[in-house]
């Protein structure tokens, strides 16, 4: 049976690439995002590409009071979900976040606080449903704080630990929680970066995300080699690490 899929942060490049894979398999999809126009453009794209049904819902991540309402309406639309993707996030300007505390916490609100709130409501929904999978986009940046992006990394570390606990809690209830750790992905969020050999297209990451949602388990680095890169980075002794520029 084609899947029923719920996507938060649906206009992000990775989320849309994931939605396209589901659309090609005739899934029914609810897209949740902040701005109506790009959301509707994505919905049209998915309909043309084969989705059985696409609905959209507007939600600002920071509007925590509306999370439950949007989730309830989405679950009512298709009577439940087989797969949920949480993909919203921002990449803060690290230098600006070092100068101003409000910048540092603002991105933390988007990348961690709102995600924790959303996952809490979603977890309860899926727990009572008794099946399904939730994938949340975290980042290898959350594996160890580095000077170049620790504001972003700290929020992702919170998401990784929260998802780990949720996975532990929901394992017995038939619900899988997947922590997705994408490496360097060529998306509008990273438009200003110079791209090297380790960079991949969002379609590559989407392939891994869909496979994870279908049958995967635990923490998924994508592409796979980031698991080994980060394993090494975590092993570097702190005395040495503080002198490195990463």
């Amino acid at each position, binding site marked *: 049976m084609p899947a029923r899929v719920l996507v938060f942060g649906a206009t992000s490049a990775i989320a849309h690439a994931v939605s396209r894979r589901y659309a090609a398999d005739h899934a029914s999809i609810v897209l949740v995002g902040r701005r109506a126009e*790009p959301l509707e*453009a994505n919905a*049209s*794209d998915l309909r043309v*590409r084969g989705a059985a049904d696409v609905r959209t819902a507007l939600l600002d991540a920071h509007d925590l009071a509306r999370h439950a309402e949007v989730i309830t309406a989405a679950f009512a639309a298709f009577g439940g979900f087989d797969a949920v993707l949480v993909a919203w996030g921002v990449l803060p300007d690290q230098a600006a976040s070092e100068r101003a505390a409000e910048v540092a916490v603002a991105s933390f609100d988007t990348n961690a606080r709102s995600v924790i709130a959303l996952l809490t409501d979603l977890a309860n929904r899926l727990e009572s449903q008794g099946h399904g999978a939730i994938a949340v986009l975290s980042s290898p940046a959350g594996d160890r704080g580095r000077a170049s992006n620790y504001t972003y990394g700290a929020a992702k570390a919170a998401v990784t630990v929260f998802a780990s606990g949720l996975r532990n809690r929901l394992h017995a209830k038939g619900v899988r929680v997947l922590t997705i750790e994408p490496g360097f992905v060529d998306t*509008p969020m990273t438009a200003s970066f110079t791209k090297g050999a380790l960079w991949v297209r969002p379609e590559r990451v989407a392939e891994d995300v869909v496979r994870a949602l279908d049958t995967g388990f635990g923490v998924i680095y994508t592409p796979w080699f980031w698991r080994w890169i980060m394993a090494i980075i975590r092993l570097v002794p702190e005395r040495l690490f503080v002198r490195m520029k990463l």
Partner: protein
Amino acid sequence: MRPVSSWGRLSRDLHDVVELDQVSSAGQRIAGSPRPGLPFGNGRSYGDVCLNGGGVLWATRGLDRFLAFDDRTGVIECEAGVTLREVIDLALPRGWFPAVTPGTQWVTVGGAVANDVHGKNHHRHGCFGDHVESLTLLRTDGSRIVCGPDVEPEWFRATVGGLGLTGLIVDARFRLRPVAGPWIECERHAFQSLEQFFALSDASSSGWEYTVSWIDCGTLRGGEPRGIFFAGNHAASRATAPPHRSRRVPFLPPVPLVNRLSMRAFNALYYRANQAGSERSTKHYQPFFYPLDSLLEWNRIYGPRGFYQFQCVVPKAAQQAAVRELLQAIAVSGQGSFLSVLKTFSGRPAVGMLSFPMAGTTLALDFPNLGPSTLALLQRLCAIVDTAGGRLYPAKDAVMPPGLLSRGYPEWQHFSRFRDPGISSQMSRRLVGH
């Protein structure tokens, strides 16, 4: 700023590349541009039409959404950065195919409109623009123009074939043509003279939708070229095909792999391979339409200095004499190409003010960039085209003199009224100074 080349790899000037990813924000982003910009699709045009060295490029590949597709009528609507490859992948399983396709499927829809591309079926279906029902143009003054053959028709005529200079095309609605499946019934004939080529063209134009000829432009025998005439029609078979494998030119060779010797050897072998064997066959659409697409980054074979494409059309009255003169000039120079293509165009009037095709014969060639000797040859070819009353294809041009533009495209003056003052390309600066 990063270096950007067109497909001919003749330059790699620095550009400020702005990646557009949402139609809803594109208008604001181009209106806020500090310097003149230029729309840039998938970089498959050859010369300088898609370049704006030192300036801004608005990259449209992120505008890659389909907006609507009716599989009863074959009308499709999509954002401008969608490639024809993506259109085919979506539409072919549902029984539809682009009504007009150029020799590569890696062009964007926006680029296909802006260059009003043509294909092997020009004598039947005209250019890409003939099948466009409507498009949306964003201008750097913040305005938005929806135009089509019956709505704002002058804006439409300026924008189809308008080389990106009238504004940023963000979406288009166009008609596809029905097909049974992915197969093409083909026929081929060897010819040994231009006379034979024109006879084959005339005899085939009513029975065959697609016609094109490859010619061996390095070797003239008694002043006559030899070549292979290919004709094709969509086949009735619905059988599906295994996925097509592609290879890649893995590195940039330090010297061109194309030289006089390899070219002669290739051309002789290619002629022999096609001269013998069966005349009729059924081919998959990919090798038929896009023989080079299976060799990714094939443009690298010309080495670090890149290559020039030269495509001209000469009017019917002068075609035989002019084509012969062009081929003689090339033979005398000793330069020449693997992929010399000859095709007749019908007299079907084109949509765009600057659309390339006219009733007559088109000749397309590529030359490795050897510096002054190549430029001298190209100038000689331009002069022949000019005298014959022909014109060059801007999508492939890097050398056209300004006089050839104004004589070849009499509507250029009228067209310039529709230009967006916030848009400039290397080609527009080379030809008209701004």
